[in-house]
C-alpha cells in the first residue's frame, strides 16, 4: 500500500530482520520473572477475600506467624498511611490511598479476590498452608456487580469519600459515580431535526480480562542498606518504581526495578499488585521474596476491562450524510475510581464527521476488581455500539455500509466531538483499501453466512522515552532503551536507529535497561513505544552521527562540517570510511562514543483501522464460525511489517474473543464463577482462520519516519464487525457482548430481528 518510491528511501525500515531476542525466546533462555533464582529466596502468597463486599473487622495472623517455615506476615497495618495523596505516574495520576487499598485491603474488601494479607515462607506449599491460619473477621455487606445497578441511589455504596467529579466540579454527596464526562458539539436538537432517518439502540458488554499468558510475578529484596530491588513483569519499570516507592513512602532513588521479559500485558501490567507486598515481606524477613499469582488470582485480583451499558443514537439525511449523534455511556471501574470512561467518551464518534453531537460518560464503582487498561481502553465497547448503529443506519438508507462510512469518515480538519481537530489521518485510506481488497471483492455464498465491516480508532499517545547508545570498536552499537519490550519493540526501535545511522539492524544490539541504567521512560502502552522510543532512538543516532563526523574530522584534519555522510559512510574529498572502519579508530581519536536522547513528543498519532469479517452461524447451536477475516490499518509507516501484522492479528483475535465468548460470569453473591481458562473461553488457534492483513501507510507528520503506533487500534473494530456479519447471516441485531451461542441462540429463537 506504499508507493515503491517511498520504500526505496529506506534500507532498514520496511524490512523484516530476525528479532534480536528471537534466539533466547525460541530456545527458552529468555529470563521471565518466574525463572528468577536468587540465593536465599523465599516464597510469598496472598490471602484473598472470599466476599465481594465486607468490612474487615479484624485480622489475626498469630497462628500463621508461629507456623514452621513462615518467615513474615504483612497486612494493612504494615502499609504507610496514604490518605489523600495523589501521585503522578507519567501516564496519569493515581490516588495512592486507593492504589494502596487495592494492594492490601484496609477497612473493607471491595471484591472477591481482594488481597487481605500476605506471608512469606520457605516454599510455596508451606506458604499456602499457612495462609489458612490467618483468621479474618468479616461483616458481609450487600454487593453490586452490574454497572446500571451500581448507579442506583439505593445501591451499596463502596466508598463514603468518593464524590462525582465533572471536569473538576465536585458533587456534595458520596456516590458510586466518581466521574461524569459531558461533551457537546453544535446543537443536538437541530441536528436530529435535520435527520431523515434516526437509529437508537442500547448495548451491553461484559467484563473481559486482558488474558496475558504469563501471570503477575515479582521478586523483591529489601537490602540491609535500605535499598529495594524489584524484579518484575511490568509494562513500565519506571512506573512500577514510582508506584512502589510511593506506596512504601521511600525515596524513588531507593528502589531499582529490573524489568524481566514479559509474557503479555495489554494494559493489565501497569498497576502494581505484588511489588510492594513482596518488598514489605522482604523487609520483615531479610530475604528475597518471590510472589507468583495463580490464574485464579489473575482473574479475580487483576484487570479486567469494564463491563458497560451504552445508548447510541445517530441521525442522517436521506442522501447518507450524518447530521447528529448522541451517546450515553456507563462503564464500570470496579472497586476504585479511575476507569476508562474518558477515552470511551472521546472515541465513541471518533471515526465520523458529525456536525452536532452530545456525549455523556459515567465512571461507575462496583464490586469487581479495579478495572485496568486493555488495548485501546474504552474504545472497543464504544465502537461496538456506534458501528452497529452505523450499519443499521446504512441499511435503512439502502446505502452500502462501506460507502456510508466513506461518505462520513473523519479526515484531516474534522473536529472531534471532544474538541480537537484531526491533523492528517488515514481512515479514508483504510476504507479505500478495504473496498479494493480481495476480501471485499470476493463473493460470500452459502446459507447462514454474512459479511460485516466496522472501523475503529485509538489516539496513540506520546509521553517520555529515553535511549542510550555505545559504539563498539567492531562497528556495532549497544542500544539501551527504557521501554519494556512486549511486542518486538527492541527491534523496531533498533531499526529506526540503524536507518538513521546508515548501519544494519543486525549491527545494533538492543536491550531493555533497568531503572538505574537508562533515563526515565514511560510505560510500554498507548501504542507509544515504536513511535516515541523510536523517535528517541532516531535522535540518539543523530547524536552518534555528529560525534562520528567529529572523529573523522580528527583523522582527516578538517572541520567536522566538511565531513559528509553518504549511505552510512563518512567522506571527505577522496577519503571514505565506513561506520565500522571509523568505529575501529575511536580509541585514538578521543575514546568511546556514546549517545543519549530523551524525548517527550506531544502529538497523538491517531490510528484508524477497518476490519472485514465473514461468518457462518450454525442455525441449531448458534455457534459462530469465523470464515475469513481481514484487518486493515494505517500504520503511518510500518517499521517491521511482520510486527505490525502481528499486532493487527493479535488485536483482531482478542477482539474476536470479546465478540464471541469472553466474559466474567458472576454469581448472585458477586463471585466470579469462571476464573480459569477452562471456563473463561478465550479463542485459540483452532477457533480462527489466518487473519489477513493490509497495512496502509499515511505517514504521521509528527514523526521523522511517519510512525503512528499500531498496538491498540486492531482490537477496536472486531466485535462490531462480527455483530454486523451475524446480522447479515441471521437477520438478528446483537446488542450484547459476548455474542456467545446461548445468547445468540436465544436472540435467534425469539426472532429479535431488526
Amino acid at each position, binding site marked *: 500500500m506504499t508507493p515503491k518510491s517511498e520504500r526505496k528511501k529506506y534500507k532498514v525500515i520496511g524490512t523484516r530482520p530476525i528479532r534480536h531476542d528471537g534466539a533466547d525466546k525460541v530456545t527458552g533462555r529468555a529470563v521471565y520473572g518466574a525463572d528468577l533464582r536468587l540465593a536465599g529466596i523465599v516464597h510469598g502468597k496472598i490471602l484473598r477475600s472470599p466476599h465481594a463486599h465486607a468490612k474487615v473487622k479484624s485480622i489475626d495472623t498469630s497462628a500463621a506467624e508461629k507456623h514452621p517455615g513462615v518467615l513474615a506476615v504483612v497486612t494493612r497495618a504494615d502499609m504507610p498511611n496514604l490518605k489523600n495523596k495523589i501521585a503522578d505516574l507519567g501516564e496519569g495520576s493515581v490516588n495512592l490511598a486507593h492504589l494502596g487499598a487495592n494492594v492490601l485491603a484496609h477497612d473493607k474488601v471491595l471484591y472477591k479476590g481482594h488481597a487481605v494479607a500476605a506471608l512469606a515462607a520457605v516454599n510455596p506449599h508451606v506458604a499456602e498452608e499457612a495462609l489458612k491460619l490467618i483468621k479474618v473477621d468479616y461483616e458481609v455487606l450487600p454487593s453490586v456487580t452490574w454497572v446500571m445497578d451500581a448507579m442506583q441511589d439505593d445501591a451499596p455504596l463502596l466508598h463514603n469519600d468518593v464524590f462525582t467529579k465533572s471536569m473538576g466540579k465536585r458533587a456534595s454527596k458520596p456516590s458510586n459515580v466518581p466521574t461524569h464526562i459531558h461533551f457537546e458539539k453544535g446543537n443536538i436538537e437541530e441536528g436530529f431535526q435535520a435527520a431523515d432517518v434516526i437509529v437508537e439502540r442500547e448495548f451491553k458488554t461484559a467484563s473481559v480480562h486482558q488474558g496475558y499468558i504469563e501471570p503477575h510475578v515479582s521478586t523483591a529484596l529489601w537490602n540491609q542498606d535500605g535499598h529495594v530491588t524489584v524484579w518484575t513483569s511490568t509494562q513500565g519499570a519506571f512506573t512500577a518504581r514510582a508506584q512502589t516507592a510511593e506506596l512504601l513512602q521511600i525515596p524513588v532513588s531507593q528502589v531499582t526495578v529490573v524489568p524481566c521479559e514479559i509474557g503479555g500485558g495489554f494494559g493489565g501490567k501497569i498497576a502494581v499488585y505484588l511489588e510492594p507486598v513482596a518488598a514489605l515481606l522482604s523487609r520483615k524477613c531479610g530475604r528475597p521474596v518471590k510472589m507468583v499469582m495463580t490464574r485464579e488470582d489473575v482473574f479475580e485480583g487483576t484487570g479486567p476491562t469494564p463491563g458497560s451499558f451504552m445508548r447510541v443514537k445517530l441521525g442522517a439525511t436521506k442522501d447518507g450524510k450524518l447530521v447528529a449523534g448522541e451517546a450515553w455511556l456507563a462503564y464500570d471501574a470496579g472497586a476504585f475510581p479511575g476507569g476508562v470512561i474518558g477515552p470511551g467518551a472521546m472515541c465513541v464518534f471518533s471515526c465520523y464527521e458529525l456536525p452536532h453531537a452530545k456525549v455523556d460518560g459515567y465512571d461507575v464503582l462496583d464490586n469487581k476488581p479495579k478495572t485496568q487498561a486493555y488495548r485501546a481502553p474504552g474504545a472497543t465497547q464504544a465502537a461496538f455500539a456506534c458501528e452497529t448503529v452505523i450499519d443499521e443506519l446504512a441499511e435503512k438508507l439502502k446505502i452500502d455500509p462501506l460507502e456510508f462510512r466513506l461518505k462520513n469518515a473523519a479526515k484531516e480538519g474534522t473536529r472531534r466531538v471532544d474538541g480537537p*481537530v484531526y491533523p492528517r489521518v488515514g481512515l479514508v485510506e483504510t476504507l479505500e483499501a478495504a473496498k479494493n481488497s480481495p476480501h471485499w471483492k470476493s463473493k460470500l455464498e452459502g446459507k447462514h453466512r454474512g459479511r460485516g465491516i466496522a472501523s475503529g480508532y485509538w489516539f496513540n499517545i506520546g509521553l517520555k522515552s529515553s535511549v542510550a547508545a555505545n559504539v563498539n570498536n567492531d562497528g556495532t552499537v549497544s542500544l539501551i532503551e527504557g521501554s519494556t519490550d512486549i511486542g518486538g519493540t527492541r527491534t523496531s526501535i533498533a531499526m529506526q536507529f540503524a536507518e538513521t545511522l546508515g548501519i544494519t539492524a543486525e549491527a545494533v544490539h538492543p536491550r531493555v535497561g533497568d531503572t538505574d541504567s537508562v533515563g526515565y521512560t514511560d510505560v510500554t502502552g498507548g501504542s507509544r513505544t515504536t513511535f516515541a522510543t523510536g523517535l528517541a532512538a532516531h535522535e540518539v543516532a543523530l547524536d552518534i552521527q555528529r560525534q562520528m563526523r567529529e572523529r573523522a574530522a580528527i583523522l582527516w584534519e578538517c572541520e567536522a562540517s566538511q565531513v559528509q555522510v553518504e549511505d552510512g559512510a563518512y567522506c571527505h574529498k577522496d577519503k571514505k570510511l565506513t561506520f565500522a572502519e571509523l568505529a575501529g579508530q575511536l580509541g585514538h581519536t578521543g575514546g568511546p562514543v556514546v549517545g543519549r536522547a530523551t524525548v517527550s513528543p506531544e502529538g497523538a498519532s491517531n490510528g484508524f483501522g477497518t476490519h472485514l469479517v465473514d461468518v457462518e452461524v450454525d442455525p441449531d447451536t448458534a455457534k459462530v464460525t469465523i470464515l475469513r477475516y481481514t484487518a486493515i490499518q494505517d500504520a503511518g509507516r510500518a517499521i517491521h511489517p511482520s510486527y505490525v501484522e502481528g499486532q493487527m492479528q493479535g488485536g483482531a483475535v482478542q477482539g474476536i474473543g470479546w465478540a464471541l465468548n469472553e466474559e466474567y460470569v458472576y454469581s448472585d453473591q458477586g463471585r466470579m464463577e469462571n476464573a480459569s481458562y477452562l471456563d473463561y473461553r478465550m479463542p485459540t488457534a483452532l477457533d480462527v482462520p489466518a487473519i489477513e492483513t493490509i497495512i496502509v501507510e499515511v505517514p504521521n507528520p509528527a514523526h521523522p519516519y511517519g510512525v503512528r503506533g499500531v498496538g491498540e487500534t486492531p482490537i477496536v473494530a472486531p466485535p462490531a464487525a462480527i455483530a454486523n456479519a451475524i446480522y447479515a447471516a441471521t437477520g438478528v441485531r446483537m446488542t450484547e457482548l459476548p455474542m456467545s451461542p446461548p445468547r445468540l441462540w436465544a436472540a435467534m429463537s425469539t426472532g429479535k430481528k431488526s
Partner: protein
Amino acid sequence: MVYIPSQWRDLTGAVDRLELPGRNLREISRALEARFPGIAERLVEGDAIAAGLAASIDGAIASRGMYSPVGPTSEVHFLPAIGGG
C-alpha cells in the same frame, strides 16, 4: 482560542470559547480565573493540571503541564486525561 468544556459553562454564562492572553497554560489559567472565578479550582491542583485532566494545544496533548507554551493563534482544549494499554 480557548474552548470551555461544557461542564464549566455554568461558570462562564454559557460562553463556550474565547480569546485570552497568555504565553503558557499557567497564564491562560490565570486569565480564565480572572474572567470566570472558580475555574482554576477545577483546572489546577497545586502547581499542575488537575488529576484526570489534560490540555490539548493545537491538537497535541501538552506534555509540560502548566509550562506548556501557547501561541497567539493556538487552540486550547481541556479534556479527560488518557493513557493506553
